[in-house]
């Protein structure tokens, strides 16, 4: 299989093309601009369309319209742009439209900065728009995962008729790493009996989220809730790294998730039994990855690029049975593997009695 060297944002574009996505609507914003740039150069020749809308609100509503016809559709933006899209995302969740949204996080709040951040964790996982909906949120930590998870995002969106977000940052977006361009996985047949594509010869279909009858409204909510429960049950994903005998645990996703792997290896060299859970799905949060470890753990540190957002989900997953602390950098700064380990040693004073791995 072909191996290429591309920027992370370009890889997202390539994965979309190879996933059979023919439609992109967006509005450029640093540090996500290479997605629209790459697709503008490469999607039209594959029979697709890239449209730079008048703004983010226009773009998300174009995605809505395109998704109604059963076509695969993508948009990409960065934090302030994603904020503008929230109303449309809520409508898409209500009408159950499959679409893939990419958020190459800026640091915030406000116009923010361009450095790596995870400050949109709450917005992505707790419903950034109004109403009570969920997005499936995938968090890649390197270029190959940007490719793999983007492809998977389209399949998950189709399978559950739900918007799926790929949650990344400018560091991953701008860094080049080799990526194997795997073929699109064999996706199961999806039900398209709901699409609106012209009703000649069949009953009319209406895709709308408006309900003024409370009884009907509750029925709708119960229907969505059932789907979200099913996703929570079936789609929690995480990577376990040296957790089998771990006494201390790091929980971290995305860019910091991979930095933490180096922290774990350095700790093991000192005889500290440290492990890592790297959430792959931010929603549904991988409770199943953390809960079975709780009894063996003496302490947990979440490593985040925000003031402490995911730590709330980690506390729920661990049912507050273990002391849980936060190590964070903000404003576009990244931690080094050494400073994470220094923090853990300072907080928990681990005894380093484990086997020393060189």
């Amino acid at each position, binding site marked *: 299989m072909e*191996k290429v*060297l591309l920027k992370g944002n370009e890889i997202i574009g390539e994965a979309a093309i190879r996933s059979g996505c023919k439609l992109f609507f967006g509005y450029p914003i*640093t*540090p996500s601009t290479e997605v629209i740039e790459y697709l503008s150069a490469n999607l039209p020749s594959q029979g697709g369309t890239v449209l730079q809308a008048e703004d983010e609100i226009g773009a998300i509503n174009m995605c809505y319209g395109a998704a109604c016809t059963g076509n695969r559709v993508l948009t990409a933006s960065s934090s302030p742009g994603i904020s503008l899209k929230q109303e449309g995302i809520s409508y898409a969740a209500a009408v159950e439209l499959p679409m893939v949204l990419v958020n190459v996080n800026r640091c915030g709040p406000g116009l923010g*900065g*361009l*450095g790596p951040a995870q400050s949109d964790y709450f917005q992505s996982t707790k419903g950034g728009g109004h109403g009570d909906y969920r997005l499936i949120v995938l968090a890649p930590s390197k270029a190959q995962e940007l490719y793999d998870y983007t492809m998977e995002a389209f399949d998950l969106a189709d399978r559950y008729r739900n918007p799926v977000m790929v949650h990344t940052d*400018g*560091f991953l977006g*701008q*860094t*080049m*790493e*080799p990526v194997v361009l795997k073929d699109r996985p064999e996706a199961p047949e999806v039900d398209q009996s709901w699409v609106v594509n012209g009703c000649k010869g069949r009953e009319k279909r209406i895709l709308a989220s408006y309900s003024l009858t409370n009884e009907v409204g509750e029925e709708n909510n119960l229907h969505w809730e059932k789907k979200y429960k099913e996703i929570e049950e079936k789609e929690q994903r995480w990577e376990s790294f040296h957790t089998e005998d771990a006494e201390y645990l790091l929980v971290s996703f995305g*860019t910091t998730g*991979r*930095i933490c*792997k*180096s*922290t774990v*290896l350095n700790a093991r060299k000192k005889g500290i039994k440290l492990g890592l859970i790297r959430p792959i799905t931010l929603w549904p949060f991988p409770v199943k990855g953390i809960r079975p470890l709780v009894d063996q753990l003496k302490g947990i540190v979440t490593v985040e690029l925000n003031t402490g957002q995911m730590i709330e989900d980690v506390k729920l997953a661990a049912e507050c049975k273990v002391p849980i602390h936060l190590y964070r950098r903000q404003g576009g700064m*990244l*931690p*080094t*593997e*050494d400073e994470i380990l220094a923090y853990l040693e300072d907080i928990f004073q681990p005894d380093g009695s484990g086997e020393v791995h060189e």
Partner: protein
Amino acid sequence: MMDKVIMAGFGGQGIMFLGKVLAYAGMTTDLELCWIPSYGPEMRGGTANCSVILSDEEIHSPVVDHADAAIVMNQPAYERFKSKVKPGGVLVVNSSLANVGDQRTDIIIIEIPASAIANKLGNANIANMVCLGALLPSMKLVNWETVEKSMEKLTIKRPQFLQGNLDAIKEGMEFAK
């Protein structure tokens, strides 16, 4: 085994390109690698820096805090990055534009008048390649052969630049001998 290299200078000195030469050299032998640009509002005349990690095993942390080597092409880059080279590492300084003053004694410093050498070769823009040549013998995972292949790939659309770049690298290697 890993080579972690930081490159820094003015925007326009070809810092990102220098990184790409190393990255594509790594691609020719199927190494794991990261090419990490400084990104944001920088432009020509501002500062530019880029780090490259080459490795024969999976790269976890992409943050380069203790570099095996660095190439600094002007004074601000020297001041900012001299402390990032780990003890025993190599620091290549473009001495045409940077004065090293009080030197660290725990690293190997190669002072090379790269801009002057590039001018002598007839192209001021290839000082970056002269610096690369000076560093190349100290690198573990790339060498002249892989860099040559990398350069062929990178100049495929403008083959007239291939030989000049290769000559500059050779000149740098010669100097560092």
